[in-house]
């Protein structure tokens, strides 16, 4: 904390220092003591008050902190004798921000700036406030003011950035950019520019307005020298020329870029584009929504005259030859790949020969085929070829004598050939026995090459690691084709084997977590996920591997951790992002200012974030669905968001349903005696209509459909497109009808069942159906278990909440005495309905618990032999299990000297039985957690029955 003339906030620094020290060492009680003493001497000092508020906030006393802050604010506003300085205001600002009252901090600064209109320090503080509030217009105004007061370049640039933000992230029109340009022009005329970042802002401003000529002129002038790295200036110049349509000049400049950076593939593509009068590659990635640019770039200007095309493309060839001759660095790949691109362009322009492209590909293979990145390098070219040519490449590759001098290179080339085979889709057409042979060859190659990695540190990637991932993929394909679970087990085994040898291979872990999830071993899948140590921004980019499965699982506590960590990360970032933006302003890295704001907006649009925001409260509802806590439900209402609109409606519909149910008996009176607001029932109807629309039906048609399925007139698959959605609809429909009684039962010739009956029958029908189709977990991976879990933890739970609410309202309230007659009759009918519904739910869940217990017992009894029996090689030596057998042979004949100690020891620790046991235990754990949920449901339903 800074101080002037030994004063801090108008108080001698020596009096304040003990407080600062105590805060820094987190001794808040002590700090508060010192602060109270200080306040007794300076009772009206806003700074002393701000310190007290800061301490209180740190101690978790938010309310007290706020009231002290407000007191300080009052002093600032009303007491003319107090000092107003940035130290006081910035301290208050910290507290206000932590208390989510940014607006109050802003008004303090606004007030101070009004009082001392020329204080730069205060204006900077105010600017900072506006940055935090994303008030771009106000940022611009205050920046201009600062610029006028001191005339510094940086404040002008702050204003220019604020204008750009209005256009890019706010609702400012493009013509605002003209204003920004004018401001800069005027400043440059009198003061020039002194920072490279300022220049790049200026040029980006012109570029955005398509004033390429102006931008080029500036770059060529004195200001251009601000860009100190020659090649950066050339890149910029080339881009501007291309965008201006001056392709020939652009190509000349880009050629210079490539002479300086011969390995720059992106700029080679730009260069070739410009040679062929096509600058479209420069427009990619500008304003696009994807973080991944398109893989295939289309070409424009295909109507170049033949002779022009020929001259230009041969110029490219000659230049590439020259680059190759000049660079002696064996790791430079770009000029070699350039030859493939040239052949590809020739084909696009109808002047090529696919044979030549194949030839170039083979050339590239002979040079770089051993590299792990070979296949991704040539992917675009391989996919460009037609099927016969693709097959030709594969044949040629397979025919290559892999005579590479080093074993690692030969291994790399062999892996590449497998990868190419996979990429061109050849595997889909292979017969089962060949496919199996392929997997075996891959695993065999892995085993045989283990000695190559003998001297590698555990930290280093082993040679041939990809072979096991590829073999795993082949086995999964075999499983899909044959439905033989043995292949699935074997695919798991080989990855586990690979991880036994080196436990860090994340690629195996990701594959494994999907395989375990699919086989209903979610706890094991989640363990592997945790071993990836996914944190910070990886939560956004990696957690989708596990989140969807967890959302439909009974592993609530793990799911809760997952959602909490992820949301905390995102929300923390949204909170601190503006501070980092201000940091970029302060360090004059203006391009980063725009980038940071846009990045925050991108993260806010993350669909995973929306899902987590909606699902976190729904999870809470699921966990608490055995007893009503209205307050909680009320808080979980979410904004309606199109793509997850249906899920976002849930909390509100549950809330409304509970109210409707509780008012079903006593006319317009709720259980707690308060009057029932008929608007709630109307709202529920509106939401039901919307919900039906999302399910794809008008309200009335949706009702007809569920009635039809319930009565057996329509097939049960009619609801299978979104079963959980439909049953939820039925549950809420009943709740709404309890109050509105709009769905009549005898208005037509056919008597209709009550909506209670509708819920009972559909819930029971589908729960039993899904339970039966789930089958024994061990032999039927995939399956309907997640669906069954969701049926019980969602619609059934919501329905039991509605029952609970009805039961409560039917209890004698004590205050009012009931009168006999019609009401009582209705009540008794109603309580029968409730009884029936409870009975029906209990029956259904009981069947599930019995089934679960039987399954768990079975799993506990399962000997690993049973699991191993899935791996049966038939009489012809085919079927799953061959690779595992190979591993066992390898282990039984371990040669320490060939493999080295580390690998030998790892091999010895391999335990296939343990993996089999893990599969059984993982499934058993999922079932047990689900069983616990079911049992608690039965218990709470039975407790309700005793109230009736």
């Amino acid at each position, binding site marked *: 904390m800074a101080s002037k003339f030994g004063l801090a906030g108008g108080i001698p620094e020596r009096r304040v220092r003990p407080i600062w020290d105590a805060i820094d060492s987190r001794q808040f009680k002590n700090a508060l003591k010192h602060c109270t003493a200080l306040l007794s001497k300076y009772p009206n000092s806003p700074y002393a008050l701000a310190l007290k508020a800061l301490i209180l906030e740190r101690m978790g006393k938010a309310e007290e902190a706020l009231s002290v802050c407000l007191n300080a604010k009052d002093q600032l506003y009303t007491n003319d004798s107090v000092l107003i300085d940035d130290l006081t205001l910035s301290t208050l600002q910290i507290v206000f921000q932590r208390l989510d009252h940014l607006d109050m901090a802003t008004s303090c600064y606004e007030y101070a700036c009004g009082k001392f209109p020329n204080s730069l320090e205060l204006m900077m503080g105010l600017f900072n406030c506006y940055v935090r509030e994303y008030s771009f217009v106000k940022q611009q105004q205050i920046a201009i003011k600062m610029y006028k007061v001191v005339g510094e370049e940086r404040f002008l640039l702050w204003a220019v950035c604020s204008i750009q933000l209005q256009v890019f992230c706010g609702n400012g029109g493009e013509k605002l950019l003209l204003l920004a340009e004018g401001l800069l022009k005027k400043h440059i005329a009198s003061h020039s520019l002194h920072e490279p970042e300022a220049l790049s802002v200026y040029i980006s401003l012109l570029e955005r307005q398509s004033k390429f000529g102006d931008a080029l002129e500036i770059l060529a002038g004195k200001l251009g020298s601000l860009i*100190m*790295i020659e090649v950066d200036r050339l890149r910029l110049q080339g881009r501007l020329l291309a965008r201006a349509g001056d392709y020939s000049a652009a190509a000349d400049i880009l050629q210079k870029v490539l002479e300086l*950076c011969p*390995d*720059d*593939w*992106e*700029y080679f593509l730009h260069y070739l584009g410009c040679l062929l009068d096509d600058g479209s590659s420069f427009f990619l990635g500008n304003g696009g929504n994807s*973080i*991944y*640019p398109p*893989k295939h770039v289309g070409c424009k200007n295909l109507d170049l005259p033949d002779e022009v095309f020929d001259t230009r493309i041969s110029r490219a060839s000659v230049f590439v030859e020259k680059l190759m001759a000049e660079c002696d*660095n064996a*790791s*430079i*790949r*770009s000029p070699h*790949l350039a030859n493939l691109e040239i052949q590809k362009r020739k084909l696009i322009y109808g002047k090529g020969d696919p044979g030549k492209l194949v030839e170039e590909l083979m050339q590239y293979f002979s040079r770089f085929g051993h*590299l*792990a*990145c070979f296949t*991704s*390098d040539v*992917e*675009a070219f391989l996919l460009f070829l037609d099927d016969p040519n693709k097959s030709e490449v594969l044949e040629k590759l397979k025919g290559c004598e892999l005579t590479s001098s080093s074993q690692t290179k030969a291994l790399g080339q062999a892996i590449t050939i497998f990868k190419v085979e996979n990429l061109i889709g050849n595997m889909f057409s292979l017969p089962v026995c060949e496919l199996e042979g392929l997997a075996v060859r891959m695993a065999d190659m892995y085993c045989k090459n283990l000695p190559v990695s003998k001297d590698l*540190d555990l*930290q*280093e*990637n082993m040679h041939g690691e990809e072979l096991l991932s590829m073999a795993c993929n082949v086995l999964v394909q075999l499983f899909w084709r044959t439905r033989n679970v043995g292949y699935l087990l074997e695919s798991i085994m080989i990855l586990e084997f690979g991880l036994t040898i080196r436990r*860090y291979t*994340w690629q195996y872990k990701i594959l494994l977590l999907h395989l375990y999830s699919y086989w209903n071993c979610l706890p094991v899948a989640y363990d592997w996920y945790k071993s*990836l*140590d996914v*944190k*910070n*921004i*990886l939560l*956004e*980019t*990696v957690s989708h591997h596990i989140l969807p499965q967890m959302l439909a699982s009974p592993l609530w506590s793990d799911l809760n951790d997952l959602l909490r960590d992820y949301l905390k*990360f995102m929300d*923390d*970032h949204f909170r*601190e*992002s503006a*501070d*980092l*933006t201000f*940091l*970029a302003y302060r*360090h004059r*890295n203006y*391009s*980063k200012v725009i*980038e*940071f704001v*846009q*990045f925050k907006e*991108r993260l806010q649009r993350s669909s995973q974030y929306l899902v987590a925001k909606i699902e976190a409260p729904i999870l809470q509802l699921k966990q608490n669905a055995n007893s009503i806590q209205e307050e909680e439900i009320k808080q979980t209402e979410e904004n309606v968001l199109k793509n997850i609109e249906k899920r976002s409606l849930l909390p509100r519909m549950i809330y409304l349903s509970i109210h409707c149910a509780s008012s079903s008996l006593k006319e317009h009176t709720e259980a707690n005696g308060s009057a029932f607001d008929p608007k709630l029932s109307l709202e529920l109807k509106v939401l039901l209509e919307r919900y039906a629309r999302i399910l794809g039906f008008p309200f009335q048609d949706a009702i007809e459909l569920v009635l039809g399925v319930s009565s057996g007139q329509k097939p049960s698959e009619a609801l299978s497109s979104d079963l959980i959605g439909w049953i939820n609809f039925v549950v809420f429909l009943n709740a709404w009808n309890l109050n509105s009684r709009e769905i009549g039962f005898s208005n037509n010739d056919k008597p209709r069942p009550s909506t209670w009956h509708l819920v009972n029958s559909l819930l029971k029908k589908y729960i039993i159906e899904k339970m039966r189709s789930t089958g024994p977990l061990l032999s039927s991976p995939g399956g309907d278990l997640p669906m069954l879990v969701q049926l019980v933890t969602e619609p059934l739970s919501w329905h039991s909440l509605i029952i609970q609410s009805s039961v409560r309202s039917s209890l004698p309230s004590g205050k009012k005495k009931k009168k006999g007659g019609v009401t009582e009759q209705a009540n008794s009918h109603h309580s029968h309905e409730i009884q029936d519904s409870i009975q029906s739910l209990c029956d259904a869940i009981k069947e599930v618990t019995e089934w679960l217990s039987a399954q768990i017992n079975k799993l506990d009894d399962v000997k690993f032999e049973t699991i191993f029996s899935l791996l049966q090689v038939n009489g012809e030596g085919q079927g799953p299990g061959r690779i595992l057998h190979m591993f066992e042979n390898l282990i039984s004949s371990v040669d320490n000297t060939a493999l080295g100690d580390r690998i030998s020891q790892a091999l010895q620790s391999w335990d296939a039985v343990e993996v089999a046991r893990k599969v059984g235990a993982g499934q058993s754990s999922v079932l047990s957690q689900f069983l616990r949920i079911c049992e608690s449901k039965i218990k709470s339903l039975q407790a309700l029955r005793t109230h009736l």
Partner: protein
Amino acid sequence: MTTIRRFCCNDLLRFASVNLDHLTETFNMSFYMTYLARWPDYFHVAEAPGNRIMGYIMGKVEGQGESWHGHVTAVTVSPEYRRQQLAKKLMNLLEDISDKIDKAYFVDLFVRASNTPAIKMYEKLGYVIYRRVLRYYSGEEDGLDMRKALSRDVEKKSIIPLKRPVTPDELEYD
């Protein structure tokens, strides 16, 4: 095949395949963004065809007087692109910027004392072990402070190894 350009925020959403490697630390957001906000010239990413991320380097420039220096905070290369001298290219770039644009005296970096492959690589790139920092990593493992002198340090004073190890609280910078 390396297009090296400034690292930008969107790259944070694309570098998972590099960062899932267990030796590559994924820092919190304010760490990355502070580097981007303060030293954007020291944060570069290398891309392969198809705009795949090959690796990246992050660093900073700091210090006073003759200890004004470039610092490598992290350099990492995806397994798919190893053994192609990419780390060297990225390091050279950072050294170049420290040398020519910021006129620093030297570049330094910290490495786990046990990470022999990395130490060997840095030695090949011209770095020497300047001093040992006791229990630098989470209070457990020692770190090595390695340095390479730049053209401004004509007499190469900055890299004369210290005779004794130091403790983390003796370090001038974080």
